[in-house]
């Protein structure tokens, strides 16, 4: 097995890695780059805790080889805030209590953000489909749907804490 050099662009920053090619994107992000916001919760591409955005699309980083992600803009939960100002979707989650233990939250927020990137005015069903790939054991999802709906309707664009 030959280790490979790889440049990953994560949250606008290029990271140079030297890795075993079987390294998953989630492992590259968490263990090699050191961004632990993205989580893992299963081995069967089921739970969505590892969701990141690749060129603005939601993708489960546990089922992408790091090598495949070269050349794309990868966004993790750490990349949503700008200069300490939370993204509207993050404010929406806080305002609606859309997380409890918080372990699924980073992946859920990435799915939510990806949905909003693509669909400015999602229906309730489209929102639910947008987060269908993300399991939450704590909230029962409805507060998450409310948050995404509120963010889509522009409730959280104000730059207040």
């Amino acid at each position, binding site marked *: 097995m*030959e280790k490979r050099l790889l440049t990953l662009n994560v949250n606008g920053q290029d990271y140079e890695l030297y890795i075993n090619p079987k390294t998953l994107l989630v492992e590259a992000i968490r263990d090699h780059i050191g961004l632990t916001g993205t989580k893992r919760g299963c081995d069967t*591409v089921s739970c969505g805790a590892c969701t990141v955005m690749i060129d603005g699309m939601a993708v489960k980083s546990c089922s992408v080889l790091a090598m*495949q992600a070269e050349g794309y803009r990868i966004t993790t939960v750490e990349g949503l805030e700008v200069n300490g100002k939370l993204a509207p979707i993050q404010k929406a989650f806080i305002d609606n209590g859309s997380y409890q233990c918080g372990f699924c939250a980073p992946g859920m927020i990435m799915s939510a953000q990806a949905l909003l990137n693509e669909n400015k005015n999602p229906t309730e069903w489209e929102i639910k489909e947008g987060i269908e*790939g993300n399991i939450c054991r704590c909230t029962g999802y409805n507060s998450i749907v409310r948050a995404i709906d509120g963010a889509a309707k522009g409730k959280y664009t104000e730059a207040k804490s």
Partner: protein
Amino acid sequence: MINDFNYLKPGTLKEALAMYAEHEDCKVICGGQSLLIVMRQGMIAPEYLLDIKHVRELDYIKFDAKDGLRIGATTTHRAIEKSDVIKKNYPVMVSMENKLASIQVRNWGTIGGNLAHADSAGDPGPVLIALKANIKIGNATGERTVALEDFFVNYFETVMDHELVLEIHVPVPEPKSGAAYQKFNLLESDMGIVAASAAVTLDGSGKCKDVRVVLGNAGSTPIRVKRIEELLIGKAYDENLFAEAGSMASVDCEPVADIHGSEEHRRHILGVLTKRMLKQAWEEAKG
């Protein structure tokens, strides 16, 4: 744990085919949404992994009013789901993709990878066979086109002999055609415990000119129930016939029991789905 492998990343299709020919113990990865799971379980451990995710030449959706639909193998499920031209001409493909796994999986997983994986519970297989799709496969020495219904050989096994999936071709549907697909599952995003796809074409007098019913997860490969074709061709709309077709479907298959349902239950559901999908496809064909 995934076993170590040597990683090959071709830039063009030509390079990909050449690399693939060069290495015997080589698996192809594109979206990896199914492959990485089985590699993680240690069930597949190739010496080489050929990554064709960036072979852009295979990423296309083309429609021609005479030739039909051609989809490159590395086209994502999501691209198919969002394609206007597919929605207009083959709406059943869009509705099938919409229920395939989750958006994340559809964003990265590909149609070629799905078909190559040959999971008997896979969604595209039954739908595309009902639509009379062909699949083009090839390697460095040449290409061949196979009817999709002949492509699947067994659980997770295809006719490919060290070949790649290159393209899926779906012929133009005849006028007065309709198609429907439904899977039976407990959760919206699950693969079907069983599934059924129906495609119907009517003649000028509204009688059945052509029909296909293809069952998913009802055997080692998608099953085209030919007896239903004999039953329905030449007949007029008749819900009793759809029910009879359902009974045929429930018999002409080999579903395997597991914790989600006994064999008897699966046969029953296949019958119900067949009946419903025939009706739905027929009504769409009527226009």
